[in-house]
């Protein structure tokens, strides 16, 4: 996965289901830029179904599918994304905002522990 690895975390289905219940689930009808190279993602994206392309300039470097968490580390540490991300139509994602992630971390349960590990990895 080249450098995309730093921005994407593959999740076990159990964690994915728990996180899914904490955010807002949306299906994109049109393609959209989620964030650009050098920016901080405004929310974290839990990909449930469909595709997200990672680009360097205009070249697609990697495509990820369901079961991945994108941008959580960058969002919580205010670090810049090393690639741009573009979501494709009909892709279903669950948005996890900074507030959602703070709430999860404050719960101090297993999910909080796992998420903390993902963010601080």
């Amino acid at each position, binding site marked *: 996965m080249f450098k995309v690895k730093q921005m994407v975390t593959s999740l076990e289905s159990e964690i994915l289901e728990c996180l899914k219940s904490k955010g807002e689930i949306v299906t994109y009808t049109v393609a*959209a830029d989620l964030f650009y190279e050098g*920016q901080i993602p405004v929310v974290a994206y839990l990909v449930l179904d469909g595709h997200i392309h990672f680009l360097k300039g205009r070249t697609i470097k990697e495509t990820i599918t369901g079961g991945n968490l994108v941008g959580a580390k960058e969002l919580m540490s205010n670090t810049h994304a090393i690639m741009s991300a573009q979501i494709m139509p009909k892709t279903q994602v669950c948005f996890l*905002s900074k507030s959602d992630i703070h709430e999860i971390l404050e719960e101090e349960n297993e999910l909080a522990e796992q998420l903390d590990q993902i963010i601080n990895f």
Partner: protein
Amino acid sequence: MRKIKEADKCQHCPSQGKGVFCDLESSELDELSQHKVTNTYKKGQTLFVQGNHPFGLYCINSGNIKVTKTGADGKETIVRVAQGGDILGHRSLFTSDFYTATATALEETKVCFIDKKYILKVIEENPSVSLHVINKLSRDMGSAENRLSSLHQKNVRERLAELLLLLEQTHGEDIEEGRRLNIKLTREEMATMIGTANETLIRFISEFKDEGLIEQQGKIIILKDTERLADWANLAY
């Protein structure tokens, strides 16, 4: 984990005094700074796209952003130009509708994003923020009403004069030759703002230049005679 650059804190915002959070106490601004995400958008990059789901509020730190609507025929119309201190995405946030317009940076623009959950909490706890948001919404509505009546009641010459005066109010700066508009819009963008064709706009700009109302330095327009422009715009100035 939550480090934020000192320069990105709300207390150092160049648009301080113009935004919706300006009445908050320093400690509240510190908390807000921890919850926001600050990004720089290059010219042409989009903040959000018409038809997508809203998940927060965008607060412009500096720069200009065009808000456009795309019709069924694919044509783009600029509905407004937002600048430092303005907020974007607030309408869709409160109605939970999809974005009804697209926001694109007209130049290098610094923008802060605050997620929906946090912004609703801030609004609930701080009536001053709600009042500022209501104020912005009311102004937006007033501008939309003026635009609608202009499109119906005024000819292209009047609409162009009105647009130049409107841009003068928001982006005007005094220089020796007159009032310089500190915003770079293409002819096409200006044409969509007054609901006319490119060719017609170019014709009227030439006419305005010939009449000594405006002057051009590259893409920058300088208003030479705002009083006569107000007459041409057919408004009480």
